[in-house]
Each structure stands twice: as C-alpha cells, then as structure tokens.
C-alpha cells in the first residue's frame, strides 16, 4: 500500500456568505473582492510546509494538482510546487506525485514532458507522472479549449509525451493538434523507460478504456467517498478484467478526505466547520460548468444522462455528520479512521495507491499539522501492509521506492513492497 498526502491549496478564509453572494468558486470568483496577494503567499507557503511535514512524518508521497481561476484550489502550476517539494525532500524515500500538470492546457504539451523530466532529475527518480485530462472548468472555460476537442487533444498529447520521454532518435510529430519538427527532449527522466503514469478521472467510461489500454494507474479523485464510488470503480475493474489485465490493486488510486482526532467527538469539535466550509463553499459552482456540450463523447453523454447514477446529491443540504456518515469524509478517532479506510476504501474499492486530503477547506495551518501527525502515527502504519499478503508489485510507483517505506513511522516499514 502506498499512501500519499494530497493538497488542493484552497483559499482558507472565504466570507461566511460566499455561496450566497457569488455564483461560483471557479471561473468567475472576483479576485479583487476575495483575495489578497500577500495573504495568498502565506497560503502557498503553508501548503508547502504541510506537504513537507507530511513527507517527514512518513507518507509515501506528496501530491499537488493544477486548477485555474478558482478559490478552491489554485495551483495553476503544480510543477512550481513540485519543484520545491522535490528539493525539500532530498534524502527521503518520498515520491513526488504530480496529479498533475494538464496536457491540453500546455502548449506545446512537451512542456509537461520537459518539466516532469526536470522533476525526476531533481528528485533523483522519485516522480510519479500524473497526466490528467483536466476539468472542463479549467480546460474549456478558463483556457478556451473547444470541449469537443478536449479529449482528442489530450490523447494526442499523451502519446506525444510518452514518445518524447522514450525516443532514442530525434523525431517529427505531425499531429492533428500539435506539429513539432524536431522533438529532442532535454532533459530525459531518470526513470526508465519513463516515470510511472497515473491518469485521474471522474468516472467517464471512455477514460476507463483509455487507462486500461495504456496500462496506467487510474485514479478517482473523488470528494464523495467510497460509497458513492462503488458502482463506478466496479465499472473500472470490469474493464480491467474484460481487457485481460490482472486485478492488481495498484492499478487504482483514490482520493479520500480524512480528519483524525483523539476521539470521534473531538474530531467533530475540531473539524466540522472546516468540512462544511469545503463542501458548501469550495465546491460551489453551477452544475453545467462541469459538462459543456461536446466535452463528453456521445457514448459517455448517453450513459451519464440515462443512468443518472452519478447525479450528485446536493451537498449544500448536508452537514458534518452527514458527510461523515456517508463517507465523504472519514473522520474520528484513529481506530475509526483506520477501520473505515481499510474496509470502505482500500478493500471496498480495491485501491493500492491511496491519496488522503488532510488540509480541508478552511482548516488552519496548526490544525492541519496535527491532522497529518496523527494520521502518520496512528493510521498510516497500520494500513501500509494491507495488500502485502497478495504479493502484487506496484508497477505504478518509482522503482527505487517500491520496496521501501519512509523512515520515522516505525511499524510496517519492513513489510511494504509486496515482493
């Protein structure tokens, strides 16, 4: 089992009436009314400090991702953050998990291949290369990419990236969307033939096929917990089986919100308002932003409209106890959290690469460190050996880190790796 600390880098101090006053946290929130650059500088530094703290506390990896024009997570360049993290974790067996730089918004997309290669060099071969499609808000609404071309551009850029890392000869790329006459990447990554690739998705059937065909780790970055993801992940594992691939749990990643305290009651006292802030403010945007016409291909459109399976319930009506009960957030004492993560997420969805979001919404810096610390000491060591008895190899983790567990955790270090 590999467990990484994920961070969104949210605005932590949105006004109480934010979701009443503004139509959206994404695309249109007015910077000049809502933010202050000096204060935001503090957020970025807190974010970096929190992830470095997690790295030193014994997490297997640290994750950042890319979003634009929003207050719920604003790292327009995750690679700037990843660069600081790669440097700041020298000497630690921690993966730099970029979840990541978005190909269709990078032009030409070999920019991502170059920057990832830099990160792999700087980190000494500890990069996990997340290659996300990017959300419709970021790619279509903020960056102007035509919804119907979004997936095609992504697929072309994905193939170009993989080739650019591996080609022994200089090559010409005469693509539909990208034309480059002399591709000759400097630098190349340390990891050969290329760094492990993760593809985040949100349940589109076409992405399942893509992930399995390309033999990458499919990651469901969910804010709705394992229960809501069960049908979808079953769909993924069915595609894995149908295409004749082994049911290696490391083919799957999942993001889970987690809040740990001494007791369940104490967790509610400490975290309730931050969890509600996250779901009520940070996820406040019009439904239609997420599905501009043409973004889903026809097959996915049909299945999402007709099944209605993924129609999210209105989180605005839910409160802390609902979020915990439904598993959107796994919160409580270490015993509660251990048990729920193992049963609902790891076993329930068959996940080998777990990401946990420990800084949630308005959660302040000190409390975040406390959450990270408790998770690292009381939860993580116990989960780490979950899949060891089945003997799977995590092909989607940097090779030099596969058999190791970062120091300082004590328990579980010797058993990890599965071979």
């Amino acid at each position: 089992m590999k467990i990484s600390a994920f961070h969104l880098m949210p605005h932590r101090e949105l006004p109480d009436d934010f979701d009443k006053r503004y139509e959206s946290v994404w695309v249109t929130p007015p910077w000049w009314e809502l933010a202050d650059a000096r204060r935001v500088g503090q957020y970025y530094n807190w974010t970096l400090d929190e992830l470095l703290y997690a790295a030193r506390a014994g997490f297997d990896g640290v994750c950042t991702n890319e979003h634009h024009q929003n207050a719920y997570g604003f790292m327009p360049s995750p690679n700037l953050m990843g660069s600081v993290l790669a440097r700041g974790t020298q000497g630690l067996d921690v993966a730099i998990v970029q979840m990541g730089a978005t190909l269709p918004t990078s032009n030409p997309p070999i920019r991502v291949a170059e920057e990832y290669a830099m990160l792999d060099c700087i980190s000494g071969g500890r990069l996990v290369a997340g290659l996300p499609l990017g959300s419709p808000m970021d790619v279509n609404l903020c960056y102007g990419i035509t919804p119907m071309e979004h997936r095609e551009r992504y697929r072309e850029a994905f193939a170009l990236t993989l080739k650019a890392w591996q080609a022994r000869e200089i090559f010409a790329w005469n693509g539909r969307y990208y034309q480059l006459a002399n591709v000759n990447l400097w630098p190349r990554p340390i990891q050969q033939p290329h760094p492990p690739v993760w593809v985040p998705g949100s349940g589109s059937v076409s992405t399942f096929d893509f992930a399995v065909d390309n033999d990458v780790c499919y990651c469901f970055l969910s804010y709705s917990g394992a229960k809501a993801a069960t049908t979808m992940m079953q769909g993924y594992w069915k595609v894995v089986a149908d295409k004749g691939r082994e049911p290696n749990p490391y083919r799957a990643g999942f993001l889970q919100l987690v809040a740990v305290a001494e007791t369940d009651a104490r967790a509610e006292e400490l975290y309730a308002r931050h969890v509600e802030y996250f779901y009520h403010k940070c996820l406040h945007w019009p439904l239609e932003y997420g599905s501009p016409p043409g973004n889903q291909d026809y097959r996915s459109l049909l299945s999402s409209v007709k099944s209605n399976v993924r129609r999210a319930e209105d989180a605005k009506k839910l409160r802390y106890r609902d979020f915990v009960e439904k598993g959107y957030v796994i919160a409580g004492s270490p015993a509660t959290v251990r048990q729920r993560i193992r049963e609902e997420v790891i076993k329930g969805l068959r996940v080998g690469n777990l990401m946990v979001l420990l800084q949630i919404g308005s959660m302040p810096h000190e409390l975040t460190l406390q959450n990270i610390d408790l998770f690292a000491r009381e939860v993580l060591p116990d989960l780490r050996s979950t899949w060891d008895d089945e003997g799977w190899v995590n092909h989607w983790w940097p090779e030099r880190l596969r058999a190791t567990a970062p120091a300082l955790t004590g328990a579980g270090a010797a058993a990890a790796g599965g071979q």
Partner: protein
Amino acid sequence: MTEQTVAVWQGKIRMRVLSEGRGPAVVFLHGPWGLAWDPFLDELARRYTVYAPEHPGTTPEAPDDVYHLDGLWDLVFCYQELLDALGLDSAMLVGHSFGGMVACELAAADPRRTRRLALIDPIGFWRDGDRITNWMMLSQAKLRDALFHDGGGEAAQRMFGGTDDPDAVAATRVRLMWAMGATGKFIWPIPDKGLKKRIHRITAPTLVLWGKDDRLVPAVYADEFSRRIPGARVQLVEGAGHAPQLEQAEKVARMVGDFFASSDR
C-alpha cells in the same frame, strides 16, 4: 416530406436532409439546437423546394461523424459537397443563428452559388461591449428562458418537450447537448472565427432578421452584418427572441419568402 441521408467527405460524414415543397431551391441551415421540421419550414415549402440538412454529428446514428471535420474550412467544403450531391448548382440560403454564420461562410466562399441570403439572428461577430451569452453554459431552464421571448410558449415547448416522461426528458437532453457540442466545435469559446475577413466577398442580396427580444445575441449585432454586406436590409421581429422563425413562424416565413421572390437587392 422526403428524408434522405447523403454521405459526403469520402463517405465519412452522413448528413440527413429533410426536404419538401416545389419551386426554386431554398436551403435551410439550422442553429445550435439541431433540426426539427417546423411550421416555418412548412410555410416556406408552400412556395419553395426546401432542403434542410442536419449539421454533421446531429444526424441520428451518426454522432461521431463530426470528428472528421477539423474546422470551418472543412465544414464549408463539406457543405459544398452536400450541395453538389443534392444537385444544387445554386440556391437561396436561409440560416438561423449558427446556421446563419455557416450560410455567410458558404456565400463568401462561393458567391456565385448563393442566389439570395436570409439570415435569422446569425452569429459570427463579437463586440466586447455587447457580450453574447454562451448558451452552451446555461442550465436547460435558463436556456429556455434566454432563447425564447416566451419561455412558456408553444415554440419553447416544442424544442424542450415536457417533463413527465423521464425517457423523453433524457432523450431531449442528449439531443440538445450533442447538437450544441457539434456546432460549438466550430465557435468555442467566442463565435468570431474570421467572418469579418471574408464577409466582404458576399454578393447575394441579403436580408437580416432579428428577434427584437433576443437575449442571447443582442439585436445590435444586426449592424455588423448590414454594414459589411452591401445593400443588406435589416428587419426586427416583434414578439420573438433568438429564434423568431419558431416564435413567429408565419410572419418570418412570409418575410423570407417575399424576399426570396423579389428581384430587389
């Protein structure tokens, strides 16, 4: 009404064409919400042979065909192949909204082929001070209100259907979403794709009609067309939003029909 599916673009794009009527040929190019044979076309078909093709990708059973076109350049040639296949050396064109932009592009690309041109709330230009509402980013309820003068009226009802039968609701949603996606491919994120550099080539006598209450593309955009197309006439349609041919079918059919019949510029 006759229905035929014409394969163009080396057979890769199947376009269904509905046609009816007798008299000179009129080609109707639909807007971003797909084609439905409606009272406006019925009315027009009393005096003309109306051909109404479906934009690539919006023909049932052929949703993915639109992926074979990379841009407007391809789309214009695709329509030229269609007109060839229909045996129309020249025709009168009437286009609504997105279809109005396509009609302009066709008339600019091959001026001799377009005998007369009628544009109904066309797109193709952009003014920073008069923003066009991106209909692709509206909820269905908001779209209904923004698109029609009367969101509760008969025309709106025909496009959006009822809310009782869940299968019908889902089918409507898929049809509208895909039609907006397949047309949106050629105009995202701002529907100004260079018509301003080509529109001067239009020689066909042109009529520009605009719904007075168009809340998606304000009627001020009529000026962009009338000042660039020599002799173009503008007429506003009362009691109509962005789709006057649906809300004022008879009136608009008469305006277009009379214009096509006249020999005035």
